[in-house]
């Protein structure tokens, strides 16, 4: 092998080692910066920033912002009242989860956010959520507010004409925010109730997250 080839080989090897070393240092530093997650059953998100605030209207016509719920674990589900199958199934499951949580349920707020503000009036929403659990809040707003919020949470939704009416396709994730308003867990619709109970309890009691953000 010629001398220049060997030098190049060494340079390359050194580069690889330096790169790996750099990765290791960065990883160690990053791990030191970010404390470990509690032992969630759902896959935890690594987001650290609080989710954007929103300003919506509840069943009594009062304005509710996400920051109003700071200090509570927030569980958000997007749907609409003319959805007879999927939405009641999920809200019923959440009501059972609240029952299982017992005292911890006081620190959990379930929000049902309509993707159909044209048809879902505040009164209808409050009747709807009350049928599942009196603590659940139904929220609505203007079309712009709802669209903006759906975008913040990556909620896919689309109005699909059916006959002379319409239905709404929508993603069916349940969004779980910690007591500091940060999005921590995403639960698919088929997540069993006990899994939600387990993880919500962890968030209610999670003392590793201090409120300095």
């Amino acid at each position, binding site marked *: 092998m010629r001398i220049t080839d060997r030098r190049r080989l060494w340079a390359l090897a050194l580069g690889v080692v330096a790169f790996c070393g750099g990765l290791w240092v960065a990883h160690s530093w990053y791990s030191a910066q970010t404390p470990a997650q509690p032992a969630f059953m759902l896959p935890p998100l690594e987001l650290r920033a609080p989710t954007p605030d929103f300003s919506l209207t509840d069943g009594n016509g009062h304005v509710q912002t996400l920051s109003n719920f700071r200090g509570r674990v927030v569980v958000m589900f997007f749907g609409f009242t003319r959805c007879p199958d999927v939405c009641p199934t999920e809200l019923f499951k959440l009501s059972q989860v609240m029952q299982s949580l017992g005292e911890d349920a006081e620190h959990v707020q379930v929000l049902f956010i309509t993707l159909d503000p044209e048809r879902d009036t505040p009164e209808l929403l409050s*009747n709807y959520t009350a*049928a599942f659990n009196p603590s659940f809040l139904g929220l609505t707003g203007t079309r712009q507010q709802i669209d903006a919020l759906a975008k913040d949470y990556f909620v896919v939704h689309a109005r699909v004409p059916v006959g002379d009416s319409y239905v709404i396709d929508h993603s*069916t994730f349940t969004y779980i925010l910690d007591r500091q308003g940060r999005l921590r867990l995403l639960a698919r619709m088929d997540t069993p109730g006990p899994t939600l109970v387990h993880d919500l309890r962890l968030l209610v009691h999670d003392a590793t997250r201090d409120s300095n953000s």
Partner: protein
Amino acid sequence: MLRALPSLFLCLVVGSGFAAPSATPAANVSIELPWARATPPGVQVGAAYAVIANQGPATDRLLKVTTPASARVEIHSTTQVAGRMQMRPVTELDVPAGARITFGPGGMHLMLVDLKAPLRAGTQLELTFVFEKAGAIAVQATVAPIGSSLPAEEDASHHAHH
């Protein structure tokens, strides 16, 4: 005469006080475990479910479903595609020979549109399934609590029968 049989059977069923599948001896299709979910006040739509069993040798077709409880009933299929729920009406449903089609939460459902009154848990709901060959089959569906995943009557002693 044959047309009166469903009504007669229905009287017996209602009289014995449980939701039972109803099928005339002449029909090849039976409706099993019909049930519905209670609805909150003010909500205009509700959901009902059942199992449609075709014991006959030929495919039959469900043309429509009616109920006195709402202006109309639509047959919907729910599919989940990458976490997004899509609900689509099905205008006619083929039931192949020997097939059992189960309507259930998260899958096919009957959407009761423009309810005349909220559906209340513990009450009975009359549903009439109209088939191309088997004709009209009327059943009494028990209304389960809102959001339930199981028929209210389902327990160890309940068994599907034809």
